[in-house]
């Protein structure tokens, strides 16, 4: 098949999957089968493109012009490939998980759930494949909107409140900052296409460039840079599979992915460091502050959400350093954090399904009755902290090397400090679960499909520590 067909398939499979899911609403088994089949198909299609991309090919597809000179264009490059691979691969895993979760908890509106889920993946893949800023923006906003029904899934007052915060912050940031930033870029550069080496080089400098970068950094609210981070904890009212895939992987990664993309292809790595000087400080502050909030949070999902906020800023921090090593670290961290965090969320959902517990303080002794779940949780936690043998170690290694190369001592300090903080809020959970005496309860593990899913992702976290070739190769080919 030609590149064009394959790229079109990347969008058509999840979108068509959503339509099929909606059509099959009377037959739940068929519906879930469709959902899983489209996930598998999407992953295979993306995978089939990966070799060529590594060889240097850049499959591209242009639809009609949306505005004169501004087409809707798809172009697959290494960074996008990595993101698309992660999103589609984990879609399958979390699809398996969702079946157990949704049925185990007797959730309502399951068809809407699976359909919106598929649409959200379509949005995320669209962001990954976007060949210019306009297309990226298009899918970025679409992603916000199709995840809104997932966030407000329960339909009660709390969901409505969470949904409002979610939508308000994400739309506010993207409209107020990202859209003008795009318009300014268009006005300055005359193009919005992602160009290796950047399109703004020499066209803007000094304070104005720093301002434009700020518009981008805060405009891409999905990257959850403080103070635009409140939507992420708010989104935790959603069912756990949503939090797991979308708010640990697809949506937030779309944010940091967009930032890396803007840094690499709009500003360019040679843009000059002055304009970027302020960004590591904001990212560093976010890392530390979010970690401290996480430390104090008792609700498990809230703790994980703030951990996500802090981990996302690692990527921003690393990208903002503008050194090759740190950039590789940033890209690797997108993958590493995805595997680790989805494992953690899966575990949280499993605990909720099996034991109906949501607070950290309730977890005493639960690990003995759910050994698989908490073993996986432990591996995820190791990855977050950045210890071997988990994937987080690899990416952190590159980031630290990058910070050293740039002689950016603040960045180095932040990474080290936050490692300690991470350990501080994750290890006690594992400790409680395994070593504290709990009440005599009788529940066992969560349904099999959930356990299988979380064990898989935990295994992937370890695999990526030993075998990081593909992500590394993709990250290197960016330079």
């Amino acid at each position, binding site marked *: 098949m030609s590149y064009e067909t394959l790229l079109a398939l990347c969008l058509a499979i999840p979108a068509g999957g959503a339509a099929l899911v909606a059509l099959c609403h009377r037959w739940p088994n068929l519906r879930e089968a469709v959902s899983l089949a489209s996930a598998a198909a999407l992953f295979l299609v993306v995978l089939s493109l990966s070799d060529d991309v590594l060889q240097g090919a850049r499959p591209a597809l242009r*639809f*009609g*012009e*949306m*505005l*004169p000179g501004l087409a*809707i264009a798809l172009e697959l490059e290494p960074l996008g490939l990595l993101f698309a691979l992660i999103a589609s691969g984990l879609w399958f895993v979390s699809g398996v998980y969702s079946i157990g979760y949704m049925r185990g908890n007797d959730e309502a509106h399951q068809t809407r759930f699976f359909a919106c889920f598929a649409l959200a993946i379509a949005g995320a893949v669209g962001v990954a494949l976007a060949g210019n800023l*306009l297309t990226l*923006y*298009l899918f970025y*906003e*679409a992603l916000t*909107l199709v995840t809104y*029904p997932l966030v*407000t899934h329960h*339909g009660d007052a709390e*969901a*409505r409140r969470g*949904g*409002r915060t979610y*939508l*308000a912050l994400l*739309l*506010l940031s993207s*409209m*107020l900052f990202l*859209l*003008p930033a795009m*318009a*300014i870029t*268009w*006005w300055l550069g005359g193009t919005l296409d992602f160009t290796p080496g950047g399109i703004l080089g020499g066209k803007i400098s000094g304070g104005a460039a720093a301002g434009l970068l700020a518009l981008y950094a805060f405009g891409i609210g999905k990257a959850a840079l403080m103070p635009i981070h409140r939507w992420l904890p708010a989104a935790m009212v959603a069912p756990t599979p949503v939090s797991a895939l979308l708010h640990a992987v697809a949506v937030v990664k779309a944010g940091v992915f967009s930032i890396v993309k803007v840094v690499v292809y709009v500003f360019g790595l040679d843009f000059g460091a002055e304009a970027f000087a302020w960004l590591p400080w904001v990212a560093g502050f976010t890392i530390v502050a979010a970690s401290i909030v996480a430390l104090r949070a008792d609700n498990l999902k809230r703790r994980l959400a703030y951990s996500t906020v802090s981990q996302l800023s690692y990527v921003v921090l690393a990208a903002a350093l503008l050194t090759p090593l740190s950039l590789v670290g940033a890209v690797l961290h997108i993958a590493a954090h995805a595997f680790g965090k989805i494992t953690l969320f899966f575990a949280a959902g499993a605990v909720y399904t099996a034991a109906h517990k949501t607070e950290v303080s309730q977890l005493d002794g639960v690990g003995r009755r759910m050994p698989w779940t908490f073993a996986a949780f432990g591996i995820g936690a190791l990855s977050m902290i950045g210890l071997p043998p988990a994937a987080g170690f690899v990416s952190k290694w590159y980031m630290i090397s990058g910070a050293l190369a740039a002689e950016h001592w603040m960045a180095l300090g932040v990474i080290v400090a936050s490692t300690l903080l991470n350990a501080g809020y994750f290890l006690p959970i594992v400790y409680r679960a395994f070593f504290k005496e709990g009440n005599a309860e009788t529940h066992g593990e969560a349904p099999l499909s959930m356990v299988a899913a979380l064990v898989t992702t935990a295994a992937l976290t370890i695999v990526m520590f030993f075998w990081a070739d593909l992500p590394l190769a993709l990250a290197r080919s960016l330079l």
Partner: protein
Amino acid sequence: MLEQLPALQVVLPLLAAPLIVLVGRGGFGWAAATAVSWACLAVAIGLALRVAEVGVISYALGSWPPPWGIEYRVDALSAFVLVLVSLVAAIAAPYARRSVAAEIERDRHYLFYAMYCLCLAGLLGMVITGDAFNLFVFLEISSLATYVLIALGPQRKALVASFQYLLLGTVGATFYVIGVGLLYLKTGTLNLADMAERLRAVEELRPVLAALAFITVGLGLKLALFPLHAWLPNAYAYSPSMVSAFVAATGTKVSIYALLRYYFTVFDPAPLFETLPTRELFIALSVAAMVIASLVAVFERDVKRLFAYSSVAQVGYITLGLGVDNLDSLTGSIVHLLNHGVTKGAIFLLLGGVALKSGAVSMSIGSLSGLGRRMPLTAFGLVIAGLSLIGIPGTAGFITKWYLIVGAIEFGLWWLVAVIVATSLIAVAYVWRVVEAAYLGEGGEAPAKTGEAPLGMLVPALAMTALCVYFGFDTSFSVGGAREAAELLLRGTR
């Protein structure tokens, strides 16, 4: 026959109106109105194609050559607006059958359709004519028909709304005709193109300035330029559903067209924008409309009034582009005529279906609760059209916003960029009140009937909604046409 297209554009609906009265049957009225609307669309597209080919088309009514006779003149701008008006008509007319049957007494149906045809003829005539006084006549034809159509609304408030509109609309038209009178006294011609030429030679500017003021205020009243919009919310909210949609999508747009004509063709825009505070005035009023009317919409309880206030705000976007006055912003302005037309048309058509099913005469936000379950397609359509109102990429509204922002940036008006994006956030607030009610609303009032609106209403409404998305992706017609029109306006004069 092709040479006769400009005349047919107006004559077809004008002929249909008496014919419907003569036959006197509602069913025939609907059939004739629909056929005429479709024919008008065909004619408008034909005209647009011809304009693209040969440039300006001039048609001498009664074969009296201009400037002595009345001239029908079609150029890029008027062709664009003609397509807009007849497109909305072509979609709204089929919709009318079930909606009118439910809302208006049976023995008045044929009169309704006759009035609708007259209104259409008036609107199309305003756009196509090249004669200042003829424009006034068509303005009054369309306005009078609109007053009647609004007064047919199901609530008694419709009468008061119609009366208010009648008073203000007539004052507007009278002011316009006073302005034209002053220009006529100064130039001795009523042909707009001829008038433009002769005005350049006029030495004594005071009467011309007075004319400018009268025409601006007069047309401002008709197009609901803030703060002259007092008539609009009630007029849209209490009229029959089909009328809300048709008038909201076309009525104000045509007056804006007339204003553009005067500002860029008749008057000399160079001194108009450079020595007079025109730019400041329009930007200030537009910003006020965008901010204040949007805020009012956020706190409005009646759904139709909410969207009516949103119309006032959206008109602000259009006049903003006029005020900024460069190619990009003017393109945004003109393309928003179309984009807002289809968006608001879609919203009111969908709300008509909701009103039909709920059986209530007035629609509070609360009465929408559970709409997502009761009428899933309608509710989804409302969301899509709402997104277009906000200006989410992939919808028609985004295209406008993009051009307005780029236009403002080119001019260095950074605060204006902030205002444009901030007001679309206010739009999020009011649109989301509707969305939340539809999907997350607590049980609330029990609906009278469930299920979607009849197909005859649902299909046109969804077709209009689809247009909101279509014009968000394929802009070859909308932006292409608008850009040509904007170039024409800017080129013809400086």
